[in-house]
């Protein structure tokens, strides 16, 4: 993990993604600095998740270039996706925990597959991760079907962090959580980012998260990044969609309370 500051963690240029006749991402360019938390906002169905899935290689792109930690995703794709996979962790929207494994086994899974560790050390590390995301060791023996929504997200985050990746992708990490749990989750991401030096790419709709956690926010509209910068930059943006998003009734209400 080369941590030279000048090289961005993720650099996307001229990316086009489409399904059939429909173009979802249209010549999009974006870069994410090392060690920052970038929030991505956009309309529902506007291609946020598509962008994320394309960056991590789950969806094919039509053209463009994606570099993660300085390596072209395309070139490292086939054989050594194996290796890239240890550089990033992904928190899927619904958690995507393996339902036949306990939470602890879910966290151990990437380590078991990628590393050579003794069973006891693996268990200790997995328990450590479980506690770092705010759960108790006893929760480790529960199966995903026995976990609440918030716990599922925490276990999924612990699994994403299992190999201490340089980048984590979070797909709507706070959706479906109550404001207190969402606030705690934001706090957790912030702490982990500080302690582990993570780069976080976060897709979210949660204005509070954007306000409190994100270093920069990118707005995706019409398949392009129409505005990017700190929260205050975005609030000043003149793009009609961004204005509607941040100056709508709900947003104003939140901002008034926040100030």
């Amino acid at each position, binding site marked *: *993990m080369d941590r030279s500051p000048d090289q961005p963690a993720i650099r996307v240029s001229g990316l086009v993604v489409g399904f059939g006749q429909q173009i979802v991402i249209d010549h999009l360019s974006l870069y994410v600095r090392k060690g920052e938390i970038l929030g991505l906002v956009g309309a529902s169905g506007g291609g946020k998740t598509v962008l994320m899935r394309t960056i991590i290689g789950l969806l094919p792109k039509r053209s463009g270039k994606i570099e993660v930690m300085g390596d072209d995703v395309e070139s490292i794709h086939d054989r050594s996706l194996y*290796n890239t996979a240890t550089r990033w962790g992904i928190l899927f929207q619904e958690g995507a925990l393996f339902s036949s494994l306990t939470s602890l086994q879910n966290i151990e899974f990437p380590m078991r597959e990628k590393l050579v560790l003794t069973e006891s*050390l693996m268990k200790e590390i997995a*328990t450590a991760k479980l506690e770092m995301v705010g759960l108790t060791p006893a929760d480790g023996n529960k199966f995903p*079907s026995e976990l609440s929504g918030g716990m599922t997200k925490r276990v999924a985050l612990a699994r994403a962090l299992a190999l201490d990746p340089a980048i984590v992708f979070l797909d709507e990490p706070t959706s479906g959580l109550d404001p207190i749990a969402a606030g705690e989750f934001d706090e957790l991401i912030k702490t982990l980012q500080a*302690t582990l030096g993570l780069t976080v790419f976060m897709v979210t709709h949660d204005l509070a998260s954007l306000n409190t956690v994100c270093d920069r926010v990118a707005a995706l509209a019409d398949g392009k990044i129409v505005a990017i910068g700190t929260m205050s930059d975005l609030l000043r943006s003149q793009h009609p969609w961004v204005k509607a998003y941040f100056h709508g009734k709900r947003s104003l209400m939140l901002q008034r309370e926040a100030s």
Partner: protein
Amino acid sequence: MYFAKRVNCSYPAIVLSSAPLLGEATNGAVLKLTPSGSWTVGNATALENLFNVVAPAIQKSKGLKIDMADVGELDTLGAWLLEKVKRSMRTRGYAVAVVGVADRYAGLIEDISLVNLNTPATRSEQNLLLARLETIGHSTFGAIEDVSVFVQMLGALGIAVFGVLRQPRSLRFTSLIYHLYQVGWLAIPIMALVTFLIGAIIAQQGIFHFRQFGAESYVVDLVGILVLREIGVLIVAIMVAGRSGSAYTAELGSMKMREEIDALSTMGLDPVDVLVLPRIIALVCALPVLTFIGSMSALYGGGLMAWFYGGMSPSIFIARLHEAVSLADFEVGIIKAPFIALVIGIIACSEGLRVKGSAESLGKQTTISVVKSIFLVIVLDGAFAVFFASIGM
């Protein structure tokens, strides 16, 4: 380390900037450790080995000093390994001093010192015999529960049928027709083919062996009675249990998983009325028809085999069949069909509703559904055989 080889071969790409090292120096009784290099998961194996090497020295020492000035990179794994050493010293009552921690890692080390403090008590190994007994006990209670689930579903179904009889319009007619189409109409080709082959095989075996006694013509009795009384209905029932019973379980199970069944209940609808009753009625209607088609198809297969392999012309086969079988044989087969369909339907639906949240449980319940319904089909068939024998049919 059975997977060591596979991992190593693909590793060089991740092995990072600098290999980790762990220097040790003894100053009186105090051990000084100087970790350096990259203390990250990429070097997990090397790190564990380093610690195994210094473990005896740590055990002997009466004080520990860790100088972390040369650590290039540190992550959770590295931090935890150092934390483990610190803890083992502290539990033995000796002081630990850590110096030279880089600012960016202070938070991580702080965080790691707070985890794994109270590991939950691992369950002690159980006596093998006791474990065996426990399994037997659990399955006994499981069997009792199975019976009660079956009876409950039968009762719920009875209530639903009463409801429909009182108010015929409450029957889900569209759903019933759809399932009738799925389990009846669409099943005809495969049922006909399988029973055709079974009939032909029975005839061929019969001819082959009866030929030794010159009793080839009795093959018609064999095929006729066997197919009409037992084989027709059994083969069709087993096929239906595998084909439609499993589909019922999987459908209801995934609806249960996605909370669709809870949604139905909260709207004041009984899942038994809406989902189970149309499915079971469809099955009860379809199975006798499929049995009839299956039996005819098996007789046809037997007849063709008798003609081509045994040299018995179709007209003789039909004439002999006329003498050999009576209406009672046909009735015995067909009477059983709706009861067997009821058993398959109840098992399939109740197992579907027992699915819990996970994908694994869906698979398990579907397997149980098929195995259990085939087993019960055969048991029921045996019970009917005893019953019909005692009433002289």
